[in-house]
């Protein structure tokens, strides 16, 4: 394979003599570095929010314990709404836990959904909904603009740089007149093209992976080797696809400027139009209903349940006669009543709330089905999943919050209905939040199909370019 190596070195030398290559190289390095910086800062803010919440919770618990001890010692007798030993009070504001989503070690690589959803969700008896929790203060125009993170650089800009290097892969040889001389040598056009592609791919891949990796080490708080390996594989596959596409256009196209225009349109199609098409059809086929109507609906339910509060309570004590207080259902205090109403409203609204998640999951499934239409979707989804800022981990977080909330309610329910009081040492028995993080195996499982699809795309593009270059038959690209 001596000539192959020779072509490679020749191409690399040629690339280094080209101004566009230097500009691209500088652009890759600067953008990757800046993007990691942006991602690292967002991760830092995320970590800060988590730390603040954890600290606040710990401090609140110290105060709560002290207040409970005061009450127990008989030094204080606060009103029913303030009494920390009442489970209804402790289970709501004063003892509320935070469900926190810790940042992943690779989060600086993609902001994804993390700027929309708060990583800290209060879990209290009334509920815990990450999608309607009060969000961080942010200028909406910044959300509209989107972040300049590494995922954006890779999915949007890297293809443009790849195309800048390879839009004239063969057409340039033809235009400068060297193609005839070149192909009169005993070297097959396939091997020639392959070597040219390899030189460009290698250059851009090394630059991107190198700059990205270095930026991670310097700014992003270090590298996680296996995640970085997957990231690099995604980048490599995605780059290979665009290089292959450039080769196809060069083989079927004519002059460089036409190739450039054709490739710009292809960029538009794969990067902008198909993803938008998939997203828009997903929203059309599985529309998520407006939350506005949920708000009003919830009030309506609350009103109805309140009217039937006695019946709701009676039903509960029928099932749990051991908790029935002295006297009758009517003797139940306000807090028990409020809790029962709340629980009933929640269970009545559960199917309505579930519809939001079902629709969203249906949208996600739709996207999962149609992501195979564009390597850009595959890449983006793989990158955000890898960073832990995609829909997958978000859904996991939601699911765990729901389970934790159920645990929380189950802990307090008998205490409230039994009209019991909490002792300070009960605080140690309260359910506490622990996020069951995705394992490496799950991350790989989430990322690998997309990566495989990406490699198929790359293989398809390269294969068709090489197929079109088969010796035999007149080709438009020949001199």
């Amino acid at each position, binding site marked *: 394979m*001596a000539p192959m190596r020779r072509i490679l070195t020749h191409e690399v030398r040629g690339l280094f003599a080209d101004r566009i290559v230097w500009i691209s190289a500088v652009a890759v390095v600067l953008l990757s570095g800046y993007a990691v910086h942006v991602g690292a800062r967002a991760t830092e803010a995320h970590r800060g929010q988590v730390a603040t919440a954890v600290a606040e919770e710990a401090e609140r618990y110290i105060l709560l314990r002290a207040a409970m001890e005061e009450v127990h010692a008989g030094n204080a007798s606060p009103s029913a709404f303030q009494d920390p030993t009442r489970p209804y009070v402790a289970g709501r504001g004063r003892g509320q836990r935070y469900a926190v989503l810790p940042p992943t070690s690779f989060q600086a690589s993609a902001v994804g959904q993390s700027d929309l959803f708060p990583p800290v969700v209060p879990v209290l008896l009334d509920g815990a909904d990450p999608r309607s929790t009060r969000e961080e203060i942010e200028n909406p125009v910044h959300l509209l603009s989107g972040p300049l993170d590494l995922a954006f650089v890779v999915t949007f800009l890297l293809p443009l740089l790849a195309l800048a290097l390879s839009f004239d892969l063969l057409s340039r040889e033809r235009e400068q*007149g060297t193609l005839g001389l070149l192909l009169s040598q*005993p070297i097959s056009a396939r091997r020639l093209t392959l070597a040219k592609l390899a030189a460009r791919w290698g250059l851009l891949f090394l630059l991107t992976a190198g700059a990205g990796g270095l930026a991670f080490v310097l700014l992003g708080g270090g590298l996680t080797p296996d995640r970085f390996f997957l990231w690099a594989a995604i980048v490599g596959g995605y780059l290979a696809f665009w290089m292959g596409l450039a080769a196809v256009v060069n083989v079927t196209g004519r002059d460089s400027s036409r190739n450039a225009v054709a490739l710009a349109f292809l960029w538009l199609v794969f990067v902008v139009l198909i993803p938008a098409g998939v997203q828009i059809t997903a929203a059309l086929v599985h529309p998520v209903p407006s939350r506005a109507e949920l708000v009003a609906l919830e009030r309506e339910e609350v009103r109805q349940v309140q009217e039937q509060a006695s019946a709701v309570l009676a039903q509960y004590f029928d099932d749990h006669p051991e908790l029935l207080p002295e006297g009758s259902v009517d003797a139940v205090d306000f807090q028990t009543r409020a809790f029962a109403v709340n629980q009933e409203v929640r269970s009545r609204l559960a199917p309505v709330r579930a519809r939001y998640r079902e629709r969203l999951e249906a949208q996600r499934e739709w996207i999962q089905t149609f992501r195979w239409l564009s390597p850009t979707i595959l890449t983006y989804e793989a990158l955000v999943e890898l960073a832990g800022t995609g829909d997958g981990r978000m859904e996991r977080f939601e699911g765990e919050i729901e389970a934790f909330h159920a645990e929380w309610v189950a802990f307090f329910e008998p205490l409230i209905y039994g009209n019991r009081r909490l002792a300070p040492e009960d605080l140690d028995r309260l359910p506490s939040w622990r996020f069951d993080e995705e394992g490496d195996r799950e991350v790989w499982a989430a990322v690998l199909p997309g990566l495989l699809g990406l490699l198929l795309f790359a293989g398809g593009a390269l294969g068709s370019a090489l197929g079109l270059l088969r010796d035999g038959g007149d080709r438009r690209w020949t001199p």
Partner: protein
Amino acid sequence: MLKAENLSKRYEGSTALSDLNLEVNPGEIYCLLGANGAGKSTTIRLFLNFIQPSSGRATVDGVDVTKAPLETKKVLAYIPEQVMLYPHLSALENLEYFAALAGHEHYSRKELEAFLLRSGLQADAHAQRVSTYSKGMRQKVGIAIALAKRARALLLDEPTSGLDPEASNEFSGLLQQLRGDGVAILMATHDLFRAKELGSRVGIMRRGLLRAELDPSTLGHADLERIYLDHMHD
């Protein structure tokens, strides 16, 4: 060495070459004359397997070029009308690259320089970037590439058009030398004078047909021109 047997090339609705039969032996220069579009370049492109014949075949040293294109290209060298090279490389670097592609990676710098010198390129130009070269100088690098490749057949597509008389004359000398070394040369040209002077044989083509094959040694310049024009006008 080079042989066309009933070689034809048809495009949709037009015939670029029909039933060409010709043979160029080692040590021969065969000049193809004809107007633009007569089929001269098509013939050369068919030998290089850049395009596929519609029927018939082209062989190099008995090997069909469509069957074993890489084998036959080892034997062939091609010099287009404009020898275009990589502008950011020097003559030496260009030569080294093309020689390597031809499978000759073993040449030392001295040997490569010797090829350039033999092609008539001044030693002080060897290290210059070819973007500064004149057409004649680039033509010489083309010859050097052919020499380095140890080509046994040379395909030339109007190599002297646009050269000044002195460069043209020098180029002719080089071809004479190659012929002396036993290289088979097929040259498409408009230049009746060069054809008369260099050609072992001259073929006159028109509209894809080889109309006549002549031995220039038996003719004067005026005769060749008259015969050529006769073929163009009937």
